[in-house]
């Protein structure tokens, strides 16, 4: 029997009897960046998946972090960072609030 995992609109099937942590790894995701939700309740990583669970929702904890990231080549930003920032630049490089 299998259990369905749903992550960002994509569906995966894994064998029952696996832990949540192993299932997350099995579908190629980092367990540290995922929360598993069943029936609106959070599941801990050691929870054993059972076929009666049917569908488990996987929630990415890092918004946007699941689409593959690439390291941009060092640019002017890295050079600029070696001097003291201006007051308008703030404390560092940020994403979002």
């Amino acid at each position, binding site marked *: 029997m299998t259990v369905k995992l749903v992550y960002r609109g994509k569906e995966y099937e894994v064998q029952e009897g696996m832990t949540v942590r192993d299932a997350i790894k099995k579908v190629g995701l980092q367990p540290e960046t995922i929360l598993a939700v069943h029936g609106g309740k959070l599941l801990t990583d050691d929870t054993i998946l059972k076929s009666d669970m049917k569908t488990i929702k996987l929630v990415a904890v890092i918004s946007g972090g699941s689409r593959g990231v690439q390291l941009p080549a060092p640019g002017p930003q890295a050079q600029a960072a070696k001097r003291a*920032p201006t007051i308008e*630049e703030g404390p560092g490089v940020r994403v979002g*609030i």
Partner: protein
Amino acid sequence: MKCRKCGATAAINMRQHKLALCEEHFLEWMPEQTQRIVEKYRMFAPEDKILVAVSGGKDSLSLWDILHRLGYHADGLYIGLGIDGRRSSSEEGIGYSDESRRLSEKFAAERGLTLHVVEVEATYGATIPELAVISHRGRDKPCSVCGLNKRYIMNRAAHDGGYNVLATGHNLDDEAAVLMQNTLNWASGYLVRQAPVLEANRPGLARKVKPLCRFYEREMAAYAIVRSIEYIYDECPHAVGSTTLYYKEILNQMEEKRPGAKLQFYLSFLQAKEQGLFALQADDAELHACEKCGQPTSAPGECSFCRLWDKVRAVKGARLPLPALPTIEISDES
């Protein structure tokens, strides 16, 4: 796995603390820990008036929720950036900013909280993506001009609104990723200024605090889910592929092998700073008042924000309003 406090089925296991908690005790633990962080770093006191910068995301809305639960006087500030998410004129947008604003307003309305809204386009005459294209700043991404605008507007709104402190929802993963990036670049100027509290040590600067700086991003997402906070799930479309996300991934790979690695990296940095690691990098640059808007700036003359908008006005001409002087119009939406 069982809750350490009551033995019920645990909802979350925080491996870095060797602590598993059920939903009920996790919801108690989060505000308790936040209060400890607020006190440890002397962020603010019960009588302070706090402005929380909210983006509609899990961190900022959860922060606002926690501060409200703790009984602090905390109002929200939402900055409308005009980001639609289109990569070309023919593509349909995802309405990123519209949805972020809707969720922020919904959150405030449900709790009877005050949310101030500053729409960049309505106030200054262009959206952030337009601004990036016109100014040719930040190569192909608007993140640089976005950061500049947000910092300026947040500081000014806090200052003009009479708030003692500006709180942002940066979590430990945000802080550790920036720390890693700045360390790999040996960016001492940035490193010396990274802290849970940025003091308002110059006229015109708002005091900035990060009450979530010791919580993992995972805990913040769990809190939002357990509290049924509706937040914008997608990150800003311009953040996809950013260096910050890259460093977060690297750090999480380390965390996977060694639970607590991220926390130790950040806390060791703070401890080293406290012990004087960056003593010779004292931030003693003199600040000047911008001759156009009066906000603090590093060099005499106009600040970066005014220079940026001057450039845009020169291109867009009469379509833009005159410089907004001297205060930002803040509409109270609640």
